């Protein structure tokens, strides 16, 4: 399954990681429609920009990115969490979201994005409908 042409929105506070993501996404044929490094910026762009999937760093310079996740969930746009904290760092409501652990290789990021996008599949959606 190709990610070619997929429009991606990135929320990541570390400038260098944004650069890395730009390169990785570009290599995958994705289209980076925007990125945000701070919560306010991320929130406004999450609702304003038009994209297929988002990559969310769990921690934005000490600020949790949960609100962005909630906003995206409301819009029905899938997303992937990236974190150095591991599974436990995921907000209670997002435990079954795809998580890509830092530092990440291209393959794990791609798998995460595919998993997130797969959620648009009706069968996959049913399996997580019961989550709070």
């Amino acid at each position, binding site marked *: 399954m190709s990610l070619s042409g997929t429009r991606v929105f990135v929320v990541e*506070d570390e400038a260098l990681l944004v650069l890395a993501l730009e390169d990785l996404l570009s290599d995958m044929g994705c289209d980076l429609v925007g990125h945000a490094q701070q919560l306010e910026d991320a929130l406004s762009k999450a609702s304003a920009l038009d994209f297929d999937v988002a990559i969310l760093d769990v921690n934005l310079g000490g*600020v949790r990115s949960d609100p962005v996740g909630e906003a995206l969930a409301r819009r029905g746009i899938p997303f992937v969490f990236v974190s150095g904290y591991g599974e436990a*760092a995921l907000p209670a409501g997002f435990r079954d979201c795809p998580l890509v652990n830092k530092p990440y290789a291209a393959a794990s990021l791609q798998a995460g994005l595919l998993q997130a996008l797969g959620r648009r599949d009706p069968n996959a959606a049913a399996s997580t409908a019961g989550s709070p």
Partner: protein
Amino acid sequence: MTARAGEAKPAGWPAGVHLLVFALLIAVPLILVTGALLLRAIQLEREQIEGRVSKVLRGIVDELDRDIDRQLAVLTTLATSPTLIAADWPAFYDQAKAGLGGRAYIVLVDRDGRQLVNTYVPYGQAPAMTGDPETVVRMRAASGPVVSDLFVSLVTKQPVYNISIPVLRDGALRYILSIGLTPRDLSELLQNVEPGWTAMIWDAKGRILARSRDHSRFVGTMVPQHLREALQSKVRRATDVDNVGVLAAAETSGLSRWRIAVGVPAGLIDRQVNDSLLFWGGTIVLAAAIMLGLAFVFGREITRPLAGATAAARALGRRQPFDVPASRLREANAVTAALRKAAGDLDESSAALRDSEARLRTAAEAARFGPHEYDVAADVTIRSPQMRRLLGADDAAQKGSFESGIAFVHPDDRAAVRQRKQQILAGTQADYELEYRIQRPDGAVRWVMDRGQVSRDSNLRARRVLGVLIDISQMKAAEQRQRLLFDELNHRVKNTLAIVQSLAQQTLRGNPDPRAFADTFGDRLAALARAHDLLMQEAWQGTPLREIIATALAPFISQGRSIDISGAAITVPAGVTITLSLMLHELASNAAKFGALSVADGRLLISWTVASVAAGEAVELAWVERNGPAVVPPARKGFGTRLFAAGSLQIDGRHELDYAPEGLRCRLNFAVPRPEVRALRAGYVDHKD
């Protein structure tokens, strides 16, 4: 000592009663035996008196008979007198009178009763006939000695009696020779009886011949028929002629028809018996009285110390002081001593208990734990003051129920705690330990450890729970801080690794040649490491801007190089230190390769201004290179350019790169939020109270 009101009288009898019974058990048989002995003694005394009466009576009878015998001997002698045989009466008169010596007189009558000789009167003046015809009659009937009854003498006109013998001629009665005697002689015979006793002689007709007492008054009078019948050889009770009650016996004389009686006044014997009775009875009564008195005295000797010991025990029971004087009863003294020791021990142990309670209280305060006790059956919890303080509850919460305790639990933990506690009560375990949050009435949330012991009955049903509530909020907070630190450390390591990974990727894009890659990547990695050093120096709390600049420039500044660094002191948050360091590293690295730092005359001016704005401080940093080689704008977007684009976004600022020919200029604007704003944005969950 008075029994307290409402105090039941103890069962049993007092010691005094026991002693009295004891005394009676000894005294009553003694009294009975003594009484029996007394009665026996009285009987013996009576028998002794009776024996003496019989003996005295026998003696008198014997003496009377001997006396009669003597008179008969005199008469027998006279009867053989030749003058009598010759019937020479004047000569016989003289002979008889001389022989008697005047004490008695002799009368001789013939067989018809005619007087022949009578020595009482001068010879020839004797009365014609005998005054005692009965003797003549008896003599004719049976020839033998005769002692007459009492009769009145014809001559003397006095009561007299005769002792007579027959004088025979040729076997036939010819004369009767009598000796006439007065009863006074007999009364002398009776004078030998013991004092107070009486003796009496009466003839066959019942006429009194002699009496030991009041002889002249009673002589010649009749002994009443009933008295004569009453007086037999066995001693009996009778009424004497003088109406005195007597114990008396009587015998008949062997030589006469007379009866002799000896009597002891009953009064005399009764008095003796009464005296004995009085003496012994008195002795018994006195002994009994002494016994009872002693029982009472000894009873008091026992009951008083016992009462003292009892009072002491009661006082001890009420935890009151007591003072019991020493008694003569060793057991009571032992009891009192034991009580005194018990009181001492009790004082000591209660003092120790008070001390330990006080210590426990202090410990409870210091350790912030609150004891509580739960009575399962009654559903009543008693909460200590420490517990109430911990719960933030007032005194009204001293007593509560299971549910009232659950109400203190934080709403999020409440259902679980209730379920767990119910499980513990229904289970079989003894110890339990729970950790949960409580919410005080004022809203404060605290972490507590609830640990305790369940005591159970033989069916393992929970009866009582003794527990303590321990405030572990600080421990929990420390635990949480530690967990946060570990999480943060993990995050930072992972993040740093991601940064390193990104650096490697970016460096590789610009430097495909391995050697060039190694050099550049090594420099960038070193810059990253120095930035970390800065963060560590300031404990991740942010870094002074001057330090960041100096550190970033350090590898590129050779001796004597002139660099102007000026600006107000400002601390940059930890989150942007690395990005800012790497950005400055790229500028410095570029300057060293192509710019002002690549030539000896090149100059570098770094300055910044700080202005207060609403969210904190706005920093404007200027990087100005001069006297360097001519600047050529880069043909393509390199790592530095991209880093600045992304980096200025991260530090909430903007940048301006001016590739002026005389020297590179860079202006960097960024904001340093105030600490509290930073904290807010960091979204710390602060667990401090």
